[in-house]
């Protein structure tokens, strides 16, 4: 069965979806991704969907779910490169993906993750000092 590769880039994981998504593929990606976040102790996940030109409600929801899952595991997820048609579809489907952070491209997404990481490390060190 085909798999979507998950690449480790520094402290982050990069998932680039280059094939048409179908339900089983998304489910296996969800398994792989959550496992990888734990194994690699990643602080952030980038999901690049710039090659994806169609989504259905299931895949849209799974994007939100994956973001929530990785957050629970301590890694922020940023979805990058969403196509206009996909964005319009998700809005028209009425899917609320408020938890999902987004960025225009991988560059900006990486910068966003780095910012989030810096902020949280500042908070962490504050907490550490107070103790």
């Amino acid at each position: 069965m085909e798999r979507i590769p998950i690449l480790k880039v520094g402290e982050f994981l990069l998932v680039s979806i280059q094939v048409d998504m179908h339900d089983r593929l998304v489910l296996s990606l969800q398994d792989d991704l959550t496992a990888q976040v734990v194994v690699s102790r990643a602080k952030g996940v980038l999901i690049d969907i710039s090659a994806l030109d169609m989504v259905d409600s299931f895949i849209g929801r799974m994007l939100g779910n994956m973001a929530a899952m990785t957050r629970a595991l301590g890694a922020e997820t940023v979805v990058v490169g969403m196509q206009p048609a996909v964005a319009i579809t998700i809005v028209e489907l009425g899917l609320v993906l408020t938890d999902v952070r987004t960025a225009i491209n991988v560059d900006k997404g990486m910068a966003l993750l780095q910012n989030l990481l810096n902020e949280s490390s500042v908070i962490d060190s504050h907490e550490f000092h107070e103790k």
Partner: protein
Amino acid sequence: MTTTTPNRIADVLTRHEQPILEDWLREQLAALSARQDLISEADLRRQSTEFLALFTPACRMGNLTDITTPEWKPGCDFLGDVSRSRAIQGFSPSETATFVFSLKQPLFTRLRQELGTDATALAEEMWSATVLLDKLGLYTTEVYQKTREEVIKRQQTDMLELSTPVVKLWDGIIALPLIGTLDSGRTNVMMNTLLQNIVATGSSIAIVDITGVPTVDTLVAQYLLKTVYAARLMGAECIISGIRPQIAQTMVHLGVEFGNVVTKSTLADALSYAFRQIGCTVTKPAQRA
């Protein structure tokens, strides 16, 4: 009604072609006296002569009750052309239909002269001529209407294109000044152009300026929110600017909420907010002493 002897009308037309044409022209000129600026007498004469030349043979060959038959096609096509050109020139529908209807008077006069003694034949011929000319008149009105609709449709698409320009304000900041009422069709166009421009320019901030939107009701707010959410999904933050005092008041009265979308009263405020977001500062050069 069965076709009695359609040739009688055709005969009258052939025999009295010139006087009928003259009478007809006089009728038309009288009806269009106020429209001399739009069409010259020479043009009118040319159109009338041409139509009579197509009308007479069609009368001779065809039945007089159905103008959809092939023998009427050249006549109808010509009428369509006349009607179309008049619609574009700015004639009113009744002025356009007058072209055909004013043929009745001269035609009936000649028919009466020819068949004056035979009352039954006269009534019959007058009836079939009336039916025929009414149909042709209605046809011109129909074409006129269609032409006007085409013009309106074209103007609408023109307006759509004109009213949704996306401008680049800075590296990574684009703005979409909206003018006019928002409906679902315009929202779709607007959303598409905005999102496509976000991708093309790689902008992370999009400012939607609604200074030119006359009213914001719940529906318009919903359209705006849809656009904002779609832009956000693509990774661009959307700012809504140009909210006038009255609009702020109506929005609160209607219970319209923009949720966590940043709204500013002027485009300048939105721009300075956008600069802060992308980490740009604007400074005046130090004044020289």
